[in-house]
């Protein structure tokens, strides 16, 4: 069973089916309300996957990724405005520009924030997010301040409007997944995992920790910035509190924790479950504060009951079941670890 589930052809087959299904979503779901959910779900799949490269692989929990999301949106809107790009398909070509600009911001923030570790890093990322929000608000000449920034409006009909955005978001999610998959298999990724497990030991065995951390941070931020750019174009109008929303950064983190921190598919699963649920809650209870209360309750239940996330929990269950089959039912948590401890005294 396990071998079947992990063999390469089955994996690629499942992946192909999943991609085809994702591509067909706008064919089956035609009304804008449903495709809107699809757009946001694809968006969060990409965001969670991108965040996981830093938070999951490297172990540096950033609660400030909303800064990159909003910065990407602002950078994109300003580039489009200055170049006078009209609404339609053309703006999509400029999304990588937003990614590059966000990467520059990530260099500056990362250089400072990555001087700290663990708890301090979390706090510094929160502070940086509010700093970027404050800049968006105060640099009125550039960003429009509290009045906000408008994007060119695509000339598409209401029924079709969401479809191009869905495919753009899906493409970004697949790009993020491909990068995440590649990093997981590369020497670079191995270095990141070593940093997560013990940064000082990683340094001692020759992992260039500072360069690796910063690189992971930049990749993660640039992807988030590009997705933010698409978001800004999609909603056509942004202002500081809306584009740089602490809740966005938090939702991403929750999705990754629900699915499985540091796994390839955990963030995808987390986003697929939570984003539709979140939209449903916001739609039904958004007017009152109850929306936040429900959200907080889901959050607490997930963290307390399943701190490791769905993917690791299920994987360990499968491996425990297959172990039992291989060795026999008597292989419970017997004295085996104890004998090994006696045989190999710790140094």
């Amino acid at each position, binding site marked *: 069973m396990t071998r079947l589930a992990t063999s390469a052809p089955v994996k690629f087959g499942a992946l192909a089916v999943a991609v085809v299904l994702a591509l067909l979503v706008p064919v089956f779901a035609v009304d804008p309300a449903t495709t809107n959910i699809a757009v946001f779900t694809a968006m969060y799949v990409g965001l969670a996957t991108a965040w996981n490269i830093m938070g999951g692989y490297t172990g540096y*929990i950033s*609660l400030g990724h909303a800064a990159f999301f909003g910065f990407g949106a602002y950078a994109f809107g300003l580039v489009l405005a200055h170049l006078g790009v009209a609404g339609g398909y053309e703006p999509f070509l400029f999304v990588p520009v937003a990614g590059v600009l966000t990467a520059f911001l990530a260099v500056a923030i990362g250089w*400072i*924030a990555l*001087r*700290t*570790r*663990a*708890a*301090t890093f*979390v*706090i*510094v990322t*929160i*502070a*940086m997010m*509010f*700093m970027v929000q*404050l*800049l968006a*608000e*105060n640099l009125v000449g550039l960003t429009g301040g509290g009045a906000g920034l408008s994007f060119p409006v695509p000339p598409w009909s209401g029924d079709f409007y969401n479809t191009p955005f869905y495919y753009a978001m899906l493409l970004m999610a697949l790009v993020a997944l491909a990068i995440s998959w590649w990093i997981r298999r590369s020497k670079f990724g191995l270095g990141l995992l070593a940093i997560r497990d*013990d*940064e*000082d030991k990683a340094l001692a065995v020759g992992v260039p920790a500072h360069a690796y951390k910063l690189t992971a941070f930049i990749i993660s931020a640039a992807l988030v910035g590009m997705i933010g750019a698409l978001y800004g174009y999609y909603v056509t109008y942004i202002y500081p509190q809306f584009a740089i929303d*602490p*809740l966005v950064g*938090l939702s991403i*983190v*929750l999705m990754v*924790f629900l699915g499985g921190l540091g796994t390839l598919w955990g963030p995808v699963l987390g986003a697929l479950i939570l984003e539709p649920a979140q939209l449903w809650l916001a739609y039904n209870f958004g007017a*009152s*504060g*109850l*929306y*936040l*209360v*429900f*959200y*907080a*309750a889901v*959050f*607490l239940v997930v*963290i*307390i009951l399943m*701190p*490791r996330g769905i993917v690791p929990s299920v994987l360990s269950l499968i491996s425990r079941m297959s172990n039992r089959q291989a060795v026999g039912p008597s292989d419970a948590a017997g004295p085996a670890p104890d004998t090994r401890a006696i045989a190999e005294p710790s140094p």
Partner: protein
Amino acid sequence: MTLILEAVIFGVLTGGVYALMASGLTLIFGVMRIINVGHGALVILGAYLSYALLSSGAHIDPFVSLLITMPAMFILGVVLQVAFIRPLKDDREALSVLVTYAVALGIEGLLGFIFTNNFVQLNAWYETASFAIFGFHIAYVYVFGFGLCVAILGAMFLLLYRTPFGAAIRATMLNRTAAQLVGVNVDRVSAVAFGIGVATAAAGGVVFGLTNSFDPGSHYDLISRLLTIIVLGGLGSLRGAIIGAVVMLIVEDVAAVVISPVWASFAFFVILVVVLVVRPQGLYGIRVRERI
């Protein structure tokens, strides 16, 4: 020049409130190695509790209402710790951030549901009445608030440095395992320390609510400031939190006068960046070598 001097005086007076709130936050970090992102929301909750008592039929004065809200918030803190912080086993630091963030959202949502999202403020005679000293007009509320914060901080220091229980708290802050080995009930110490931190948040909330208008969403701004202060002072250092708070508030108030009010909060974060570049561990922090 007079304006700058006035800004410095206000910076010290308002810095006292932030010192109190940041002390609770840094105490919680010191004892449990967790960041209580919900601290800002708990401050706002404290302010709303006093607001409810003030606008109720009993019309209780905000400072007097602390006799009710502080014990209530202490119990709430103990409950929160036992229910949500204690169950966390692995990766406490990251998970505790998420859990306390969720607590903050829950409080924000509940307050929005009960009190709506309109701005309110605690009103009392001393909020508008002022006295003149050396030509400066200072509202009584700032002095009363400063006095309250100094008194509570003093009580906290007495508890920490003059009582056996304080010794147990400090031992837990220094080395949790060693404290456990010498017989300190670290679970109890943690719960009580969390309760103390939350109770001081209630006191901070009253002074904050008397000097600012607030709504359920005010906690975002507040927590980003408090976290900046405790990073500046060094995580887990009470001295650092107090000095950090006063320095930050003086800088902010002076920047508001010298540069512009809209950039005042930005000065706050600029200091954080400068400190991190020069001294990543903060003013009184110790450099973290291993994952804590």
